[in-house]
């Protein structure tokens, strides 16, 4: 008998409000999901771009070294040049690369050159490797060029350009964070607004639950969950939408030795989406926490 009385007919989908029960999704939620998805997609694109730029600059972007070449084989001049470079503020160290080391590196790089290490060493200039304290310091590269030109030496300008690209990427990274935060705020507001409409539509239910002694978390939790699911769902959808972009640009990017890793984007997009959704829901439900009527004391 107990079994019979506890049973719910198969065609009945019991929807008890409050607690961890997710409210049903409607057209407003679907629209909000689409808008948040587009915003997260834009954020994903920005960070994929940053990832590509980072790879393009090279793995040594965090350990930038500039090379200076002196063609004349003059030990005194080389020593004076080394000293001059060491005297530049923001230069951490200057190392003279031995001819042997340079030849080994060159031979590895130009495997079909057909010369022995000794022959190669005779053709190579004296090379200095400069380690920088702060590649973003003002006039640093001008100072290096000045010292080098005083001794008739040359600075590897490709490395200087890459060092400065690193500087621009660092600036772009700040902008990317700023754009991500602005978009996150906009997404949270969109979700908040959507949930406010849901809250208004279900004001009677919320009021009743409170009259029955419901705890605040019990009343708010369905909306918080809805915001979280909405944001996380938008994050997954945005991640899926990044794939066509990556696949479409793969050939072009491979010419720049850029190989984007899209798989790792799922976590920040999923968690970021869930976070902005939860924040939006928290904004929305914060305003429904007031009591019923204020009365004079």
């Amino acid at each position, binding site marked *: 008998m*107990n079994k019979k*009385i*506890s*049973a*719910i*007919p198969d065609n*009945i989908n*019991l*929807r*008890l*409000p*409050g*607690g961890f029960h997710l409210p049903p999704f409607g057209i407003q939620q679907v629209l909000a999901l689409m808008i948040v998805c587009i915003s997260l997609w834009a954020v994903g694109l920005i960070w994929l771009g940053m990832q590509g730029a980072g790879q393009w600059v090279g793995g040594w972007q965090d350990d930038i070294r500039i090379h200076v070449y002196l063609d004349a084989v003059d030990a005194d001049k080389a020593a004076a040049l080394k000293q001059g470079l060491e005297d530049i503020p923001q230069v951490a160290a200057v190392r003279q690369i031995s001819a042997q080391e340079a030849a080994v590196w060159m031979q590895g790089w130009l495997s079909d050159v057909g010369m022995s290490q000794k022959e190669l060493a005779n053709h190579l200039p004296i090379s200095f490797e400069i380690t920088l304290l702060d590649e973003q310091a003002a006039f640093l590269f001008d100072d290096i060029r000045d010292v080098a030109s005083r001794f008739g030496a040359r600075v590897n300008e490709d490395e200087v350009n890459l060092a400065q690209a690193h500087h621009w990427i660092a600036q772009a990274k700040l902008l990317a964070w700023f754009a991500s935060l602005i978009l996150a705020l906009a997404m949270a507001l969109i979700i908040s607004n959507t949930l406010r409409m849901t809250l208004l539509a279900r004001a*009677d*239910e919320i009021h*009743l*639950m*409170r*009259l*029955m*002694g*419901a*705890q605040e978390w*019990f009343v708010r939790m369905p909306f918080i969950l809805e915001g979280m699911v909405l944001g996380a769902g938008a994050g997954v959808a945005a991640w899926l939408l990044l794939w066509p972009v990556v696949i479409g640009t793969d050939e072009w990017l491979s010419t720049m030795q850029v190989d984007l890793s899209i798989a790792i984007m799922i976590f920040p997009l999923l968690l970021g989406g869930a976070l902005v959704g939860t924040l939006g829901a928290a904004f929305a439900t914060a305003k429904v926490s007031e009591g*019923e*009527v*204020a*009365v*004079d*004391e």
Partner: protein
Amino acid sequence: MSVEQSQINMQRLMLRYPSGKIALSGVTLDIKQGQFVYLVGESGAGKSSLLRMFYGGIRPSSGSLMVQGVDMRQAGESKVRELRRHTGIIFQDHKLLFSRTVFENVALPLRVQGWKTERLIPRVRKVLAYVGLGDRLWSYPEALSGGEQQRVAIARAMTAKPAVILADEPTGNLDVDTARRVLDYLMDLSRQGATVIMATHDLHLLESHPGRVIQLHAGALAGDGR
């Protein structure tokens, strides 16, 4: 015979709204457990305000009010929440959730109290059978008549076995026969030990369903008797 416990006690109770209007003034009353109490009086006499104070919807401005042992002037949110879990409320307009089934409406107080679904199903079935709606569990309120909707509201109010049931003009929109049936249920709940306080204008019901009558006039106590 056991000594009846005081469920609601108020001394020189006063309620003043922020607008300055005095809704209740100097009301002193004691309501015992299991009593059936009618609150009568003209519109604006303070009946609904008094009922709302009993569940912490509004707080007294001065005087004292103890409801189920809770000092309503000092009680914090958690105390009020706890008190509401032991209070059933019935409204004139039922306040049923029309997007939910009869079952879901009646199960709401139990859900709020954290009952698991398997546990609440037999209880909800039982109270709906008690009010004669055992066959309407999965109907939506809009498919029910006014009287049936009010019976759903009664079932919802009694499902968590509250010590106090507050009814704000529950028969206001019902015909005489249906109103009497609603009163039958409320009287029965009172006989089972619940304190029932009902604000009403339907004085003819007093003849068929006698109870303690508390009369309010312009926010003051104008009479108390049978």
